[in-house]
């Protein structure tokens, strides 16, 4: 049985709010591939805590503003 995640994220919205940053730009800035950014946005990959913090820092927001976990 494949694992799934309840974590969702707002990376796509945050990219658009930040001068329509491309997936490739974000990938370059955190040292990942564009396909991994796509996978994160689609909820097909849960990044490490370190990567999650890096993404939040790029958008200058808190971690909870990028990744959400249901109550």
């Amino acid at each position: 049985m494949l694992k799934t995640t309840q974590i969702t994220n707002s990376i796509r919205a945050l990219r658009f709010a930040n001068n329509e940053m491309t997936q490739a730009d974000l990938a370059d800035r955190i040292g990942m591939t564009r396909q991994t950014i796509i996978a994160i946005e689609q909820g097909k990959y849960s990044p490490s805590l370190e990567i999650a913090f890096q993404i939040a820092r790029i958008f200058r927001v808190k971690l909870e503003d990028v990744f959400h976990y249901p109550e």
Partner: protein
Amino acid sequence: MSKIFDIDWRKMTHEEKWTWVFLSTAIIAFIAYCIWLTSQSSSTPLTEIAYVSPMLLAIGSAIISTIFGEILIAATAPKGKKRDARDQEIIKEAEHSGQFLVTIGGMAVVIMAMLKLNHFWIAHTMYLAFVGSAIITSVVKIIYYKKGFYPC
């Protein structure tokens, strides 16, 4: 299930492309070898077939094809990072899944050698374990890429 076989080369990571090449070459070489072996078995008892050179040819051609595939993928890939943390995590998890078959195969050939079975069966058991492991590892990787990967 259909999404797993939804092969869009442009959307794949470097590692996923390489996995498809690795899986294809392992299966094609094994099937070609099995066809040759079956054709020989009609006229010669299995344990008397001169299998060494054809088996080495099958294994060697699979390895060389994979190397050429890797070179071709790298040459045609867009600039930028080829593999990242997600690839490393998927590789590690998938190899862990496929490794058990090599272990079982290794244990089986030790027992077969102790029982002094014909080397034909020993060589084929190990080859089968390698191919099986390659298939399991590759399929698990592809499933993780297509369906999603959530490390603990």
